[in-house]
């Protein structure tokens, strides 16, 4: 029987890192979860992050992905609030 969950590492930056006080989390999610479900779980834990919901982009394994990208166990996920490099 296959594992009903997937385990992913979530890298946190900027406002997300400040909300959690740590640079990364390890989360278990139901198999078939999308990367946007990671954001939704974090916003449920930290409602003060709600302002970033619609402007957060997503990365999996160092590549930008769409919000509906499906997670695999072992993925490194990043939530990308508005960037300001340069």
């Amino acid at each position, binding site marked *: 029987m296959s594992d009903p969950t997937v385990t992913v590492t979530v890298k946190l930056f900027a406002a997300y890192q400040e909300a959690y006080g740590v640079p990364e989390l390890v989360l278990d999610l139901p198999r078939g979860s999308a990367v946007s479900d990671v954001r939704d779980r974090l916003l449920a834990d930290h409602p003060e992050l709600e302002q970033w919901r619609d402007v957060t982009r997503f990365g999996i394994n160092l590549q930008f992905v769409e919000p509906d990208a499906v997670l695999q166990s072992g993925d490194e996920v990043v939530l990308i609030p508005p960037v300001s490099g*340069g």
Partner: protein
Amino acid sequence: MQTAFGVPPTHHSDHVAMTFAPLSIEEVYALADDPANGAVVVMSGMVRNQTDGKPVVALEYQAYEPMAIEVFKQIAAQIRQTWTDVTRVVIHHRTGKLSIGEISVLVAVGCPHRSEAFAACQYAIDTLKHNAPIWKKEHWQDGSTSWVSIGACEQPGENC
């Protein structure tokens, strides 16, 4: 590798880096130097002493470094597809807390002719600012801090 988005491997003469140590214009220029060049355009970005008239004392840069490096490589690859005469693409970015006047980013592009060098360099810095997973926090003179949102930078009249 980059195959997921069809980006070719980094050209052997391109150079990208994220570094905690200070950036060197001389090093970046040397990396862009090439006998086929007729022009090298170097873009240098540094910490400004104010934002919208409010005094800034420092900027603190945070980056998701491995993904930022991937984005830099994709920028270099896209430049080579768009401006095929480009000889060298160099992108270096700093992390950590920088004070007024310190260089935060250097982009250098070498080309046989200046117009392509200017265009490619502008593409590189504009794309970096929009896509590289790098964040900066403004440290204000009054001791408070805030993360910069590029949303503010996209308002008419802003100059980020």
